[in-house]
């Protein structure tokens, strides 16, 4: 019998075009390259300068997401530099023969939302994108990771990447989640445990009863934030939940091809004897609804707790970073999180903008009103999510409750479009990064789940749905 291997090692080994020797990286084949307007213009320029073509336009898909406005999308983009960037993507994709889903197209959306929903993301694949949240696709048992613009150019030209073989890390979440605790809380708790650098150089495999019981969308939320723990990628073994999500999607195999794909996918999970470089275990029963209090995603706490004081950290670097974070966030250690008022609530981003996220939030919003003075944005992840939500009447529930229902895109997740926080404005956000200025210069971001975001919008201060009863 051959060496026992982990899921990620199996996928990696299948994609080696040329093995590196002497500590060098392997040349890996890329099955799917997702492209968006922000990290690609300089890469296409590079191709033009050196007279190269896109090697496999048929394995490349582009969309417009980071810059696009979420209102008045029938008008030209008002911000000239944004408009130029979006137009540049359109020019580049048409010149190089790459499919692009433009603003307003039914299949347009956040790059990590449209891949899975079209069935482009399948188990066993290698997927890259000039975007660090590419690990989202790992939920299907694929190796998916973010790359820089030079690497985007390299993949466009060669459909391969030179990559050092990463280490492996098993994160097991056992037990059962309490009511009101979601996939977002699970991943925030994991990052709180391993820190922003804990996963550097490694691919995380998420496992255990809690992970198995998550839906595909929940699994995407978990894998999405792997990068926030520093990991190269994050993935989950494909199982019947994965297969039933995929069956019948536009790009999924059919007939005999579906059967051979299934046979193959069932062989992917880590061999029982395979060893990981590192093991981390969390008890799912202990995880509470989470809120970030600081300026990196490892600075998280339970919603029902009090904001930590810098003195509560033993490590001097952590103490220093907590003090700086509290100052930036305008918070005083010791304050109960539930007493902190918000100005804005953002429901969206590649972490939490799928249909189940919107249903969770709409459930909380139904029959209630947003607290006065709170600005709320609900931004579906894609044209298809928007359509589905509208067919279920979720848009009506949101607007009746006073939430603003928008067009798909990245929006306030990174504030490259007009959806921004003002200096010192505080937001409860379902996105993935609470870095200084991430949602607008001087803005203060607290990461939460869609249910907590919606409850916070209603209460005006951080709240769980149960607090509204």
């Amino acid at each position: 019998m051959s060496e026992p291997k982990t899921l990620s090692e199996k996928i990696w080994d299948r994609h080696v075009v040329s093995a590196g020797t002497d500590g060098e990286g392997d040349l890996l084949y890329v099955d799917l390259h997702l492209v968006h307007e922000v990290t690609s213009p300089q890469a296409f320029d590079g191709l033009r300068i050196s007279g190269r073509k896109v090697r496999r336009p048929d394995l490349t898909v582009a969309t417009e997401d980071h810059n696009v406005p979420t209102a008045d999308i029938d008008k030209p983009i008002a911000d000239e530099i944004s408009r130029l960037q979006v137009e540049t993507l359109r020019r580049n994709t048409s010149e190089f023969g790459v499919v692009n889903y433009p603003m307003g197209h039914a299949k347009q959306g956040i790059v990590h939302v449209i891949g899975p929903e079209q069935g482009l993301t399948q188990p066993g694949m290698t997927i890259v994108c000039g975007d660090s949240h590419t690990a989202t696709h790992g939920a299907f048992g694929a190796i998916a990771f973010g790359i820089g613009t030079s690497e985007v150019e390299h993949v466009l030209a060669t459909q391969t990447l030179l990559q050092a073989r990463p280490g492996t890390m098993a994160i097991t979440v056992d037990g059962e989640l309490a009511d009101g605790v979601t996939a977002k809380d699970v991943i925030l708790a994991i990052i709180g445990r391993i820190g922003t650098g804990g996963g550097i150089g490694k691919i995380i495999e998420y496992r255990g009863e809690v992970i198995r019981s998550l839906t595909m969308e929940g699994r995407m939320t978990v894998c999405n934030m792997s990068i926030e723990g520093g990991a190269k990628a994050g993935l989950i073994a494909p199982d019947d939940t994965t297969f039933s999500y995929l069956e019948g999607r536009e790009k999924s195999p059919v007939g005999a091809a579906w059967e051979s794909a299934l046979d193959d996918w069932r062989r992917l999970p880590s061999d029982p004897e395979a060893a990981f470089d590192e093991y981390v275990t969390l008890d799912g029963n202990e995880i509470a609804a989470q809120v970030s209090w600081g300026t990196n995603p490892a600075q998280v706490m339970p919603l029902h707790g009090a904001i930590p004081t810098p003195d509560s950290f033993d490590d001097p670097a952590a103490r220093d970073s907590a003090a700086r974070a509290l100052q930036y966030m305008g918070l005083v250690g010791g304050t109960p999180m539930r007493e902190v008022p918000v100005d804005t609530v953002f429901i969206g981003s590649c972490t939490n903008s799928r249909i189940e996220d919107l249903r969770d939030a709409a459930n909380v919003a139904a029959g209630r009103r947003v607290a006065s003075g709170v600005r709320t944005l609900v931004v579906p992840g894609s044209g298809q999510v928007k359509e589905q939500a509208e067919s279920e009447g979720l848009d009506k529930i949101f607007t009746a409750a006073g939430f603003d229902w928008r067009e798909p895109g990245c929006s306030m997740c990174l504030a490259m479009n007009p959806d921004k926080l003002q200096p010192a404005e505080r937001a409860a956000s379902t996105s993935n990064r609470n870095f200084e200025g991430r949602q607008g210069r001087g803005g203060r971001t607290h990461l939460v789940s869609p249910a907590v975001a919606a409850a916070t919008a209603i209460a005006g201060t951080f709240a769980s749905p149960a607090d509204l009863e």
Partner: protein
Amino acid sequence: MKAVRIVTGTALPLDRADVDTDQIIPSDWLKRVERTGFEKGLFSEWRDDRDFVLNQEQYAAANILVAGINFGTGSSREHAVWAIQQYGFEAVISPRFADIFRNNCTKNGLVPVTVSAEFNAALMRAVLEDPDLEITIDVERLTVEVPAIGLETSFPLASGTQQRFLEGLDDIGLTMRHLDEIEAYETKRPAWIPTS
């Protein structure tokens, strides 16, 4: 990319951990479609603070950035490397770099120098005390030397990456030498893998 063998000069001490790429270059700067002109965006929000180390005269000539642990976390934006480089830095020293940032460095000739936490702390202290302290990073011998205070260490770089630094090689050109293997691989891919 241009070849890099030796980087000699003085350092700027950025004594913070977890510096993410949103801080290195805020997202407003990402709308540009060019590859140059990012130096003004480097740490642009932190630069509003007059005391921020980048605004301190005594470090104005520095060409080496010494930073805390977990440098370059977060977004994959290569603009972060372009900004650091275009501002005038040729190397960054940290106990740990985020993966994508580190890869991006190697594609642009910005030397990522990973050192132990102890070495980093000693160097940080020394540079805070003496802004004119001369540091030499040797990409051929993979060493960092600070002769004035007798500090010296080695740093890791995979041999192929080191070769690309030393010779200023173009990655795509190198990969093209494997074209036969790429073509052979393509004939063996399972047919069900989707296309656009």
